[in-house]
């Protein structure tokens, strides 16, 4: 409830923020439509024009689930407000996770009208997923949120040791979005580079969920992906917990 009120304190600011994020889709829509139609190709790396446009439509939606802007652990550590959560009779990390999910939920709810607008504007080029793939997509999306949070929590926990991490978070989230297929399908990459990207866990954040929606991944591979995502999440969370425990010992709560 607190995060809802906080986010909606300046409604125009928030609404315009979501509208601004629509521009990402329309720019790539115009660009790829021009590329496909002017060159006369029907497929690029097994992606038709409608699959490419659908890819960007889904990625624009998945960006609403990206928790990087909704996590405040690092800020509260840096300004000392973390002390407030530490002395309370509940787990400080759990509170931060709940707060983050609240913000994500609000972000998604407020994005729905704009999502519908994009769909109406570009419906000729957007594929509707089958019900089964849609369910697989939603489960993968939920797992990807946990994966992203467990990774970013490591960076947040570095705040105990190295101070403010906001600049590093911006840089790292940009790199992650690139490695995850947030700017173009990873299938478009040339051979060697694609291999490197596929070995990293970040493809599970954008590329894999989107390809599940597009029906490009077989069910057996989907279940395998889920297993890998859970393992990576456990690994990242374990690293975060180690950094957090060592950081708590150094924490003085004086803030800046």
């Amino acid at each position: 409830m607190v995060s809802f009120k906080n986010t909606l304190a300046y409604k125009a600011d928030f609404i315009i923020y979501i509208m601004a994020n629509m521009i990402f889709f329309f720019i790539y829509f115009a660009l790829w439509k021009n590329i496909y139609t002017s060159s006369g190709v029907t497929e690029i790396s097994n992606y038709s024009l409608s699959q490419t446009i659908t890819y960007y439509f889904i990625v624009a939606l998945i960006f609403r689930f990206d928790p990087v802007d909704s996590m405040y652990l690092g800020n509260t550590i840096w300004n000392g407000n973390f002390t407030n959560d530490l002395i309370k009779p509940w787990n400080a990390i759990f509170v931060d996770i709940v707060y983050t999910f609240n913000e994500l939920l609000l972000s998604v709810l407020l994005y729905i009208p704009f999502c519908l607008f994009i769909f109406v504007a570009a419906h000729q080029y957007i594929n509707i997923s089958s019900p089964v793939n849609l369910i697989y997509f939603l489960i993968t999306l939920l797992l990807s949120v946990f994966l992203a949070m467990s990774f970013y929590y490591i960076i947040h926990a570095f705040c105990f040791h190295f101070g403010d991490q906001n600049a590093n978070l911006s840089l790292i989230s940009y790199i992650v979005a690139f490695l995850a297929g947030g700017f173009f399908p990873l299938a478009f990459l040339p051979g060697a580079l694609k291999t490197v990207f596929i070995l990293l866990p970040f493809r599970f954040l954008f590329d894999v969920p989107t390809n599940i929606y597009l029906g490009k991944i077989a069910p057996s591979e989907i279940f395998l992906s889920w297993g890998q995502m859970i393992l990576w999440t456990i690994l990242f969370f374990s690293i975060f917990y180690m950094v957090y425990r060592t950081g708590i010992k150094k924490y003085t709560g004086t803030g800046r």
Partner: protein
Amino acid sequence: MIKYLKINWILFKNAYIRDSKIPGVILSNVTFHLLDIAVTIVFFKIIFSNISELAGWNFYQVLFLYAFAKVIISINNGWFRGGLKDFATELIRRGDYDFYLIKPVDSMILVSISQPRIYNFIAALFEIGICFYAVWAGHIQIGLINFLWFLYLSFFGLILYYFLSILTIVPTFWFIRLWSLQDLMGRLSQVMRYPSGVFPPFIRTILMTVFPIVAVAYLPVYTLFYPPKMEYIIYIALITIVFGILANFIWQIGNKRYSSASS
């Protein structure tokens, strides 16, 4: 004019002292810019592995357009973005805008230049390097007349981008906190990196007239590569003046509406 240059110089010196105390911030910001350039070049390589021209422009021309657009954005970000961001998020909300209003200088300019960011100018140097690389690697022939007109249009493009930035944050006078419009400016700036022919005619018209963000980079670079068009040369000067008058006019209306947050 001299007064503003002196104020600017003092603020730049302060910014240098401030930024040099935290070299990590400079490093991460410059790294971010370089990374953005690298990612975009990879993206352009992917595009041009499937086509030879994008809206009639080859890879090196598009690379130059992108790098030049980034130069405009970096100079504006280094010079004005800090102050405009502060205005959009804090000055009106907290009433700190009073400090700028009572000074014997134009408040719009003072707010704009109040928080320069030196590291953006460092990034601009790399982007200028990319421009030179694109010309050299693409064997692009540039005449002296084209280059002189390019400088002329670039000057107006830079100022036009500033006025467009002002227009995106001036509604803060009415909405109190409206940083998302500046974020909108950042998003719209992405259209500057592609030739205008990529966009459908209706959208292209909007982006060249109603909110002429495409004109900022496209018109100067077009003039550099192709025979100069007098209509472009006159047009960019005209819209810069029009948007300058508009930005200043709306800012003055906002000033009348402003009532301090009080203490």
